[in-house]
């Protein structure tokens, strides 16, 4: 009994340890670079005695995050809500449009070139126009975020759906599959790795989209706060807001990556399967 528990806990400890080692190996280099860069940054600012309104040291940004935690939290919540909503709109629109364009050849030929061309329209310039059209509310902000994120999701959905191995489709045809069944059981699942790639890219754009949207017209949020702080030459607060925005983008990216791991575990072992 005692022996059993010891062995079990030893095994558990061993597997925890190996998991740690794997994580360290995976994230270690990035963490090291960030830590070294922050250290150098701190050092340079102190040695060269750079004024705080020009370029604040990391320690000062952390202090700002702590001292202004109350207002920062409120604005962060505003922005986070926009980011999540805008991203969900982009995800839905990207999937729906991607699927529609896949299903209809006519639609694809008519709409896809326009979609691609539309990407050269600078969304940043479009934002104030959107405010004029949609009014001074959350609408234009969500629209800007959605415009930022939508394209990689839609394009990857189309690519994924059309890149399915025709041999699988033929196999399904010999098994009495309808068009619908082929879509549901073959095309969509095999497009999922592509769709997740597009979604991960889209996720990294969502936060920056929210900042641009807020710059064009808003009365709160981290983007709005940045403009206010800049006006007061409160550069440490600008940097604090940037730090939060960045961590939002990274978190959303990691969230999508986690969902991807959980929903399509087969995609990771795919390389190993091929003979």
């Amino acid at each position, binding site marked *: 009994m005692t022996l059993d528990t010891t062995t079990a806990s030893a095994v558990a400890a061993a597997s925890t340890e190996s998991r740690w080692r794997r994580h360290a190996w995976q994230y270690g280099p990035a963490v090291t670079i960030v830590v070294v860069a922050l250290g150098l940054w701190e050092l340079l600012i102190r040695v060269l005695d750079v004024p705080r309104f020009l370029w604040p040291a990391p320690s000062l940004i952390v202090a700002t995050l702590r001292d202004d935690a109350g207002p920062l939290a409120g604005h962060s919540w505003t922005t986070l809500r926009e980011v999540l909503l805008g991203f969900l709109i982009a995800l839905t629109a990207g999937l729906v449009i991607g699927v529609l364009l896949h299903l209809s050849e006519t639609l694809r030929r008519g709409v896809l070139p326009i979609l691609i061309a539309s990407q050269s329209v600078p969304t940043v310039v479009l934002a104030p126009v959107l405010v004029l059209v949609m009014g001074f509310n959350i609408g234009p902000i969500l629209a800007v975020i959605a415009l930022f994120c939508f394209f990689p999701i839609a394009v990857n959905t189309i690519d994924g759906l059309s890149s399915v191995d025709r*041999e699988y489709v033929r196999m*399904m045809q010999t*098994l009495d599959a309808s068009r619908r069944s082929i879509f549901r*059981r073959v095309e969509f*699942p095999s497009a*999922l790795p592509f769709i997740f790639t597009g979604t991960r890219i889209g996720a990294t754009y969502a936060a920056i989209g929210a900042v641009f949207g807020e710059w064009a017209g808003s009365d709160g949020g981290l983007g709005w706060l940045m403009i206010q702080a800049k006006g007061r030459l409160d550069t440490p607060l600008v940097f604090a807001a940037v730090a939060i925005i960045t961590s939002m983008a990274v978190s959303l990216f990691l969230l999508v990556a986690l969902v991807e791991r959980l929903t399509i575990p*087969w995609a990771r072992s795919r390389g190993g399967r091929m003979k």
Partner: protein
Amino acid sequence: MAAERPWTAPPVNAGSGVTDSSITIEGVRQVFGDTVALDGIDLHIRMHTRLGIVGPSGCGKSTLLSNIAGLVEPSAGSVAIGRATTAKERLARCALMPQKDLLLPWRSALDNACLALENRGVHRRAARERARPLFERFGLAEFEEHMPAQLSGGMRQRVAFLRTLMAEKDVFLLDEPFAALDSITRASMQEWLLGALTQEPKTALLVTHDVDEALLLTHHVVVFSARPGRIVHKLDTDFPTNVPRREIVTSPEFAHLKEQALEALEV
């Protein structure tokens, strides 16, 4: 052998008498760009008989199966299954086991085997219950929930075979169905197939590289030439199914037929 019914549901056409499932192939020619894959293929396969096809690699054996199944319309000539002449009608009559297993990597072995039933609107749970007993029969018990990536090549091939079986069609087109199996498993699968097809006859085409397999499992064997594939030799086999395999393989008749087939393959 086993008294169990290999097909869990009666054929679709039971009741209205038996639908003609003979296959008639006339002047089939298949061209891919500059490649002539098949040329001048004429074949008639009587209903419920089994035909073996052997021939060198690249001579168009898989192509002929696609032509028959209606996946690819031949460049010239015609194929009919009973009265079904259009590609679409033929597709509905045939179960094709492709040369590659083509298991869907996101479905477990059992769910892969259930594809045909699910396509026909059977609920997943019901479909799984129907497929499960066959997993045991084919030595796949306990691997039902494994993903294809976790299966060996031979296991994958057996799952693909099961998937074809579950389509419950009256024409069977098997493209090297047992090529990835070790000789013992292969012999057992061959025996099972022979038993099943004797008990519930179907029109079947068996493409294989293994002359022994063709001779043992079918009524007639055709030998294809190298590309463009033409029929260079026909053999009638039809060994009794109730005699042990060992006796057949060592009989002089078998040796004679095998020699003929190998000789035809060499030209």
